């Protein structure tokens, strides 16, 4: 068995099997657990009711992000600003109390290290290659950019992990998405993952864990890899992975929770073994030609509804599949779009740059590069930039990016999930359109009736400048 060539996913899986059960499920050890305020209160309460403790408190990190307003968190006198919405306030208070009560490290809303769970984990060196990482949020796959097996879980599983540091799981099938060639100028990691989802479909990865392979990924920065893996769930996959390499090690070295000294060397030696063996078999394999990828936008209410920016809104008749025709019809009605409209003629009123998909320093740099010396169009009513963490925010301010954004008419906010999910005050009004760097364009995701177009940070900036969806390559 040990000699059989294995995929990266199979290697990580095998290294975490505590025991296998008769029914084929396995008890899998969880190395890292991220907890936020929305999906954890009942889990902690369950522990309390059963008189249970957290098995390994140091393997869980808690940080609030989903509900927090992105307006200033402390007033002029340095006092914390209370959250107006009583339910959000109660969820935050619950996490604030639960984390210390169970011995879990908690990053408060007002700390510099606070941010979106999936930005904070890698940034702190908490997320490491070859580890299993879970969180009560479906975009946990993000951490796969470091070569970790990371996936989202529900509240009852959160409680299970807290109590046992394990999960009972069925092994998924390994899938390969291979990208050949190089991406063109002005084409980003976000454009690539949107293109991939458009190509394989929102259910294309169902039951699988995707490994992204090819030179393109090897040449990507960690920020870009995190963006790609983040949206694996939009392709239906359980998780997405990119093999760790020197770029990964350089990114992690010296991070607060990363291994140090001799342990660092031992860790790197182990991480170097985390590659798919020659001859390993993938259950499914898709090849994409990088030259085919253009700046991408979504037109509908499923992340697979992707077209190149030079394309047009499709007509329901364009789809062979009957169910897809009906879905497309509904999407077009919701989105208020007529078939055949060039995407570059779609006017937008809102721009959101943020979310765990695109709120890291490189994302902000890419957007700022487009906005420098420019201003948002008059029809753009609301444009916000929400850094993924306080550290990203501080770095951006040091580079003067905040001024570029504010001079361009953007609001510069405090870190959090913000308009990614319409659960906090940052919402897109009903019927209005938003060029958004987030990951989901579902009906009502950014607020009831909100119309989302998923784009890259540079494309969001370009849309802000012209007031409509725009090919950023025309502006640079």
């Amino acid at each position: 068995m040990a000699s059989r060539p294995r995929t990266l996913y199979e290697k990580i899986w095998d290294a975490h099997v505590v025991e296998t059960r008769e029914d084929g499920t396995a008890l899998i050890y969880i190395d890292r657990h991220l907890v936020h305020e929305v999906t954890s209160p009942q889990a902690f309460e369950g522990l309390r009711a059963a008189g249970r403790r957290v098995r390994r408190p140091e393997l869980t990190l808690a940080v609030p992000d989903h509900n927090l307003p992105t307006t200033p968190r402390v007033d002029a006198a340095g006092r914390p600003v209370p959250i107006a919405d009583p339910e959000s306030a109660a969820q935050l208070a619950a996490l604030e109390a639960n984390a210390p009560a169970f011995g879990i490290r908690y990053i408060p809303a007002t700390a510099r290290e606070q941010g979106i769970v999936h930005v904070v984990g890698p940034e702190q060196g908490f997320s490491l290659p070859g580890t299993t990482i879970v969180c009560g949020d479906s975009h946990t796959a993000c951490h796969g950019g470091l070569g970790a097996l990371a996936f989202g879980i529900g509240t009852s599983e959160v409680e299970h992990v807290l109590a046992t540091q394990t999960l009972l799981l069925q092994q998924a099938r390994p899938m390969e998405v291979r990208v050949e060639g190089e991406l063109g100028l002005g084409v980003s990691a976000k454009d690539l993952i949107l293109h991939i989802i458009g190509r394989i479909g929102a259910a294309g990865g169902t039951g699988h864990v995707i490994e992204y392979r090819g030179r393109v990924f090897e040449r990507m920065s960690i920020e870009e890899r995190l963006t790609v893996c983040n949206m694996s769930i939009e392709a239906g996959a359980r998780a997405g992975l990119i093999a760790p390499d020197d770029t990964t090690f350089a990114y992690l070295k010296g991070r607060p929770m990363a291994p140090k000294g001799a342990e660092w060397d031992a860790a790197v030696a182990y991480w170097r073994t985390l590659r798919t063996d020659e001859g390993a078999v993938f259950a499914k394999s898709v090849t994409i030609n990088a030259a085919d990828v253009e700046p991408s936008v979504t037109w509908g209410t499923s992340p697979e509804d992707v077209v190149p920016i030079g394309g047009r809104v499709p007509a329901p008749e364009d789809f062979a599949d009957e169910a897809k025709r009906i879905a497309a019809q509904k999407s077009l009605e919701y989105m208020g779009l007529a078939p055949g409209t060039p995407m570059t003629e779609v006017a937008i009123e809102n721009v959101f740059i943020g979310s765990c998909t695109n709120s890291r320093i490189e994302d902000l740099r890419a957007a700022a590069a487009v906005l420098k010396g420019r201003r948002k169009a008059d029809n753009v009513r609301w444009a916000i930039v929400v850094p993924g963490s306080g550290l990203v925010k501080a770095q951006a301010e040091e580079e003067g990016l905040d001024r570029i954004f504010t001079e361009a008419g953007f609001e510069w906010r405090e870190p959090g999930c913000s308009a990614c999910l319409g659960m906090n005050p940052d919402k897109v009004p009903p019927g209005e359109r938003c060029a958004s760097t987030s990951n989901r364009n579902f009906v009502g995701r950014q607020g009831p009736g909100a119309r989302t177009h998923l784009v890259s940070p540079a494309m969001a900036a370009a849309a802000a400048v012209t007031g409509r969806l725009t090919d950023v390559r025309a502006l640079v």
Partner: protein
Amino acid sequence: MQPLTRVTGRAIPLGLKNVDTDVIIPARWLKTISREGLGAGAFEAIRSEPGNVFDNPLYAGAKLLIAGDNFGCGSSREHAAWALADLGIRVVIAPSFSDIFSGNAVKNGILPLVLEQDAVDRLLAVAREGLELTVDLEAQTVTTPYQDRFAFAIDPFRKHCLLNGLDEIGLTMARSEAIAAFEARRAAAQPWLMRGTAATS
């Protein structure tokens, strides 16, 4: 979780068919941070009617609930089981249940007890007199003060979990030694994996 072996108590004779999870706990109660306290929202619509079974003193302190076919249909929300548990209900008797609900019920120490419609009707009649019923899970019987005795079937694994108060977490915790052995191997071979937040310099 509280083990369930023998339950003696009054039963709320609800009797309705297709009681869905929205009836058991309306959506507006889902934003809570607790599993407890949901009893206040349980069966809200029914309880807003005067003279409803839930507020009838004859059934005060009931530990059982008797309903019609397809109890717990609708959404998968675990809140429905939490709400019943918060009301103090340990057993729901009905001719059939939705699959998801019965799974959630067992997870929360509630027995979804299936009996033929005739037997359910007889138990409804006894319950309406305010008399106590006894459910013996070990013997798999329901008995009444009138010497009625109904046998019921239950999946052996579910029975085992309920009798011993085992939820999924409890079952995994029973494997604690295997987990500890795994942790010990890692701590020796790859200590950095076990440090987590404690690694901060």
